[in-house]
């Protein structure tokens, strides 16, 4: 673990987190497939997780790591519900294009 502290500076982790997050945002905005949009959300969540872990390590603070567990837990639950919704939507509409699913009902 020590090589992290010596070899890679903090800002790199944060930069990676920011890039991943931006990728998530852009993916969310430009992709039409609902599953891709969903994956983008996961990407954003994990980018945030990365910065949480980074800061927690930097400051020897356990609360950041606990936060990450919470986020992962919520993400898992969200994945289960979200995928179920996606399946239901696909069954009803035979499409997964987000701009076709704008009626707030099936």
């Amino acid at each position, binding site marked *: 673990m020590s090589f992290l502290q010596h070899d890679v500076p903090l800002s790199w982790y944060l930069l990676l987190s920011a890039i991943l997050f931006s990728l998530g*945002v852009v993916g969310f*905005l430009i992709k039409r497939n609902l599953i891709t949009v969903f994956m983008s959300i996961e990407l954003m969540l994990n980018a945030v997780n990365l910065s949480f872990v980074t800061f927690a390590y930097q400051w020897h603070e356990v609360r950041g790591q606990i936060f990450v567990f919470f986020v992962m837990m919520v993400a898992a639950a969200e994945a289960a519900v979200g995928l179920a919704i996606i399946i239901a939507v696909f069954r009803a509409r035979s499409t997964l294009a987000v701009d076709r699913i704008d009626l707030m009902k099936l």
Partner: protein
Amino acid sequence: MNEPAHLWLIPLFPFLGFLLNGILGSRMPRRLVSAIGVLAPLVSLILVLGDFGATVITAASSCRGCGPVTALALPAAESLSFPWIAIGALRVDFIFVLDQLSAVMLLVIMGVGFLIHVYSVGYMRDEPGYARYFSFLNLFLFFMSILVLAGNFLLMFVGWEGVGLVSYLLIGFYFQRNSAADAGKKAFIVNRIGDFGFLIGIFLVLSTFGTLSFGDIAVTLSLEPAWHGTVLTVICLCLLVGAAGKSAQLPLYVWLPDAMEGPTPVSALIHAATMVTAGVYMIARTHLLFDRAPVALWTVAIVGAATALFAATIALVQNDIKRVLAYSTISQLGYMFLACGVAAYSAAIFHLVMHAFFKALLFLAAGSVIHAMAGEQDLRKMGGLRTKLPVTFWTMTAAVFAIAGFPPFAGFFSKDAILYAAFLQGTGGKLLWFVGLVTALLTSFYMFRLWYLAFFGKPRSETGHHHATPMSMLVPLVILAVLSVCGGWIGIESFSAYLKPVAAAHRPMPTGNSSLEFILSIAAVLAALEGWLIADKYYRRKTERPAQLAAALPTGYKLLLNKYYVDEIYGALIVKPLFAFSKYVLGGVDLLLAGLAWLLAGVASMTGMILQRWQSGNLRSYAAWLAAGAAAVLLFLLLTGSPHAWSLPFFHSETIFKVSHITVIQPGQAGH
């Protein structure tokens, strides 16, 4: 006393009936609707009977215990109260008081009300809106029992307005008919004038006494025995305006004849037996105030006597059977006001009860006649119904004799008590007595006129195919007929002894003697007999005479037939100017307000048109806005420096960034 909390049950059951029939009635079978509608007043009637027994026992024990009336406050047999309104110094309790007066009233309301509900089952059988009818009727009983049980002015006013509302709804029951809808509105608006007076009276009471509770007012008055201020007179005159509106006295009586547009059982219950007597009840309830205001009392007496005579003269020539009865009701209410005006409150209530019996019976019998004539109400087209409707005929006969004041029928005792009490009040009282006597003659005449026209002679029209009268209509008629015959046998002495703790006048009353009373009652009976003989002559033996008389006195006849043109005068003096005023003056104001409203609406819809582009329904555009917003906040934070310097009024930077404070300090020493 014992279990005071069950008073709320009395209004509860009619209210439940109203809710059930009002909400679910249109989906329920008619039998269930009638069962609910009839059971609600029956249960309340049984409760009232129980309470009434309790008050009789209380009255008996209190008479034995103490000679003079020592009670300062209302001698409440039972009461129920909890805080209702408390604003600063103003404190109004939700208080129900059951004393002798409210017990008598409740007995009449629930008793006659129950009979009329039963009657309605038969009468309204084929009408549309059956459930609506019964739910309104139950609602009426609910509000009326609140009015009667109320222990302060405000709660009484709630019941007062409530019965006004139900009266409006039921007058306009056949709302498809223009005349019915108009009559409902007329009743409502004319009552507003009276209610305005009542409200002013209530406000004056509040500012004078600092309380609205009848009991507290009684205590205050008893502490100041010499208080006879003008304030009390003004309060009483305001209350009189309210009472005159509700009880259809001059000059606010005009709504009652038109109220006959409603179904006949409604006329019997609301516009004859109970609601219109609320004014009399109110004066009797607040009589401690009236006792201290002799001017107001005289006004009450004069209004009553004038109304009695005025309405009786109109009733002489009316041809609609229900209108005759309506004017007769106004006239009899005038008698009750006359009794209140001479401080004979128990006589007024006695007449109220007897009147409830025989006038409800008259209306129900008239309803039976109308039912048999297939809706025909014109007396000139009736005739010869004696043999076709024997039960109706005999019950109607009992009622006619009762209202005309023949012994031993109910009306004799009560009317006699009123006339006697009036006669004892000095010279002015003798004048009032004379007016009452003339009215008694007129009453007897127009009632026997109706009796002869409807039941004797030959049928004057062939249109009526005679319906059979159902049992549910006949039984209430018979019960009410028995009451109209025997009701008066209670006697005014025992009745006023029972009411004494509540309704005895707190002012010096003249004493009479029994021989004078006997002579006066002979005079009253002679007047009634005279009226009968004239009616007999004109409408049985010489049936051509009325027309000749009308031809000989065309002005007088027309004046009476058109009810002294009062409606026309009110129309020309009040309604038309008001209409013109609203049209031209208020019309301008309306235009301004409407313009303002349009402007505001225009601004709102323009803003909406611009902003609605935002709500595209496109998920990705929302997400983009969200991201842009987050980026903007981030940029703002970066540009305005560190989070510690950053403070917006609605953020508490200390609490938000406390964590980072601590964590910033820690790196040096912490480590694991």
